[in-house]
C-alpha cells in the first residue's frame, strides 16, 4: 500500500489542510476557525464531547458538508463548489460511517465493486479480484455473496472498510466507526483499523477508543464547541493535557 501511495503521489504537500475554516448551520456557528494539517501517512485521532463539531469537520473533508469560510485542501486540491473537483477528491478519500451505510439491496461483493467499476472504471473481473483480496484482509471472504442484513454489526463495518479500500483511497476518514457496535465486536473492527494504520495509510479518525488512539495515533485533536482546543502527540495529550476542558473530558472518558 505504502509503496503504491508514494509512487502515485508526487505531491509532497500535506494530505489534508484546513485553513481558518468556518461553518454555520443557519445562525449556529458549528465550526470556528479550524486549522489542521494532516501529512501523508499521518494518523490523526479526533475526540471531544458530542456536539463538538468533530463529525461535521471530517464530513467537510469529502464535502458531505459544505464549509462557508476559509480554505480546505485535500491532496493539494482546494474544495470549492466545482463538481469535478469534488468528484476528484471523493475518489481519493474513503469514508467509514458510524452506521456502516452498506447498500442493503446488493450483496457484499456488489457493494465492494460498485465504486471501482463505475467511478474508477476498472474491469469487473479485476474489481472482483481486488474486492476478494480486501475481504480476505478484513477476514470475511466467505461472506462475499451474502446480503448486508445477514451479517453481524462488526462484519458489516469491516465490509464497509473494505468497500472504501477497494477505491484505493489515499486518505481514510472514520466517523465513529465503533460507536454503533456491540462491545464484543469493537475489537474485530479496531484490529482491521490498526493493521491499516501500520501499513501507512493516512487516517483521520473520530473515535472515543483511547486505546486505539494511543496505539496508532500520531496526533490527538481535542474539539469542543466547534473549536480545536488542543492538538498534541498522544503521550503528551494523555499524560499532560494543558487545557481544562481536555482534562475534564479525559477524566470523564477514562474514569471507566
Amino acid at each position, binding site marked *: 500500500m505504502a509503496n503504491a501511495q508514494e509512487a502515485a503521489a508526487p505531491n509532497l504537500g500535506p494530505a489534508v489542510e484546513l485553513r481558518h475554516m468556518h461553518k454555520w448551520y443557519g445562525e449556529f456557528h458549528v465550526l470556528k476557525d479550524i486549522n489542521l494539517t494532516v501529512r501523508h501517512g499521518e494518523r490523526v485521532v479526533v475526540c471531544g464531547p458530542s456536539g463538538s463539531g468533530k463529525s461535521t469537520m471530517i464530513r467537510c473533508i469529502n464535502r458531505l458538508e459544505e464549509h462557508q469560510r476559509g480554505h480546505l485542501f485535500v491532496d493539494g486540491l482546494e474544495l470549492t463548489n466545482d463538481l469535478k473537483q469534488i468528484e476528484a477528491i471523493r475518489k481519493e478519500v474513503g469514508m467509514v460511517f458510524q452506521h456502516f451505510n452498506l447498500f442493503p*439491496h*446488493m450483496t457484499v461483493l456488489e457493494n465492494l465493486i*460498485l465504486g471501482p467499476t*463505475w*467511478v474508477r472504471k476498472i*474491469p469487473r473481473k479485476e474489481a472482483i479480484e481486488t474486492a476478494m483480496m480486501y475481504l480476505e484482509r478484513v477476514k470475511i471472504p466467505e461472506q462475499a455473496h451474502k*446480503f448486508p442484513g445477514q451479517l453481524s454489526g462488526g462484519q458489516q463495518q469491516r465490509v464497509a472498510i473494505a468497500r*472504501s479500500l477497494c477505491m484505493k483511497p489515499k486518505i481514510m476518514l472514520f466517523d465513529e466507526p465503533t460507536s454503533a457496535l456491540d462491545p464484543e465486536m469493537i475489537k474485530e473492527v479496531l484490529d482491521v483499523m490498526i493493521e491499516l494504520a501500520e501499513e501507512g495509510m493516512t487516517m483521520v479518525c473520530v473515535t472515543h477508543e483511547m486505546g486505539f488512539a494511543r496505539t496508532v495515533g500520531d496526533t490527538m485533536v481535542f474539539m469542543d464547541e466547534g473549536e480545536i482546543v488542543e492538538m498534541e502527540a498522544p503521550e503528551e495529550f494523555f499524560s499532560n493535557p494543558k487545557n481544562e476542558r481536555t482534562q475534564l473530558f479525559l477524566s470523564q472518558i477514562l474514569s471507566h
Partner: protein
Amino acid sequence: MTIDTGESEALQPAKAVFYNDPKVRAVFWQIVAVVGVIAMFWFLIHNTITNLDRQNIASGFSFMDLEAGFAIGEGMVTYTPANTYWRAILVGLLNTIKVAVIGIVFATIIGSVVGVMRLSPNWLVARLATVYIESLRNVPLLLQLFFWYALIVGILPRAKEAYGPFLGVYLSNRGFNIPLPDTWGYMGLLAGFLIALVAVMWLRRRNKKIHDETGEIKNTLGPGMLIFAVVMMVGWLAGGAPTTLDSPEFKGFSFTGGGEVTSEFLALWLGLTLYTAAFIAEIVRSGIEAVSKGQWEAARSLGLKRGQILRFIVLPQALRVIIPPTTSQYLNLTKNSSLAVAIGYPDIVGVTNTTINQSGQAIEGIAIIMAVYLTLSLSISLFMNWYNTKLALVER
C-alpha cells in the same frame, strides 16, 4: 366409537367435558357460522325468486343473446344497436380497459414527477407540488369528473366552430379530433421503430459487456436516439415516404375522418389521472424518503455521480417501498373508472346500466359488473405480485 377405546384412552390425556373442549367449540361455532350464512342466502334467494315470479321476470342470461337496441357513443370494436347485449357488454369492457390502461400510464408518470417535485430542494417547486396533491386528494373524484366534463363541454366551442390550433387537429365540446395515418406505408415507420428498439436493447447489452470487461462507460442515450432517428427514417422511406394524413373534416353535423377522442373519455381520463397521480405522488415521496440519508452519503463518498446514485442505490430501494401501495392505486383507478357512468362514457358499468334499464335483468347485470371487476382486480394484483417477487428475487 369403536370397541378398543378403553385401551387407547389410557394413553391419552384426560378429556375435558365435551362442551368445554376448544376443538368441539371451534367445530360448533363454525357450523353455526356456515349454517347462518346459508340460511341468510336461502332467505334472500327465496325472496328474490318469489319477487321475480310476482313481477314475471325470467332469470338467467338468455336475454343476453337478444338485440341490444341501443347505441353506444364510442368503442374499439364495431357495434350497432342490432348487435346482441353480449356485444354491447364487450364494447363497455374494452372501454373500461382502455381508460384504465391509459389512466394508469399517465397517473404513474405525473405522480412520479409530482412526488419528486415534492422533495425538491427548491422551495417553490415543492410548494406547488404540495398544493397540487392536497387540493386534488381532498375533493371527491366524482366532483372533479363533473367539473372537468362541464369545463370541456362549457368552454370549448361547438363542433361547427371547432378550434384548430394545428393543422388537422380540432378541439370542440365533443372532444378532440386528430389526423391519423391513412396508408399502409406508415407501417414502415412502425417497423423502423420496432427494429430500432431491438437495436438499442442490443446496444445497451453490448455497452454493459464492454463496461464489465474494460470498465469503460459508454453512453447509450445519444447513440440510441440516433439509431431511432435513422432507422425510423429508413422505415418511412421504405414505406414509400407517405406524407398524407387522414384529417378530420367537419361535414354536416359532425367530423368525419381522422381519430376522435370524445369529451367524455377526455374528462374521465383527465379526472382519473390527476386524482390518482396525487396519491401516487405521496407514495413516491415516501418511497424515496424511506431510503436513508446515509445511503446517499455512502454513495457520494464513493465518488458516484448523482444519476448513478439514483440508478444504483436509491431507486432500487425506493421501488420496493413504492410498488405494493402503487398496485392498490392502480386497482383503485380501475374501480374508479366505473364513475364513467356519471358523465356518460360508455364503460362496462354504463353499458350494463343501460342493459338493466332496458331488460329489467338487474341481478344478471350487477353480477356481470361484479364478475368483470373481480377479474380485473385479481389479474392486476396477480401481475403485480408476480412482478414484485421477480424484483425481490433479482435483488435478494
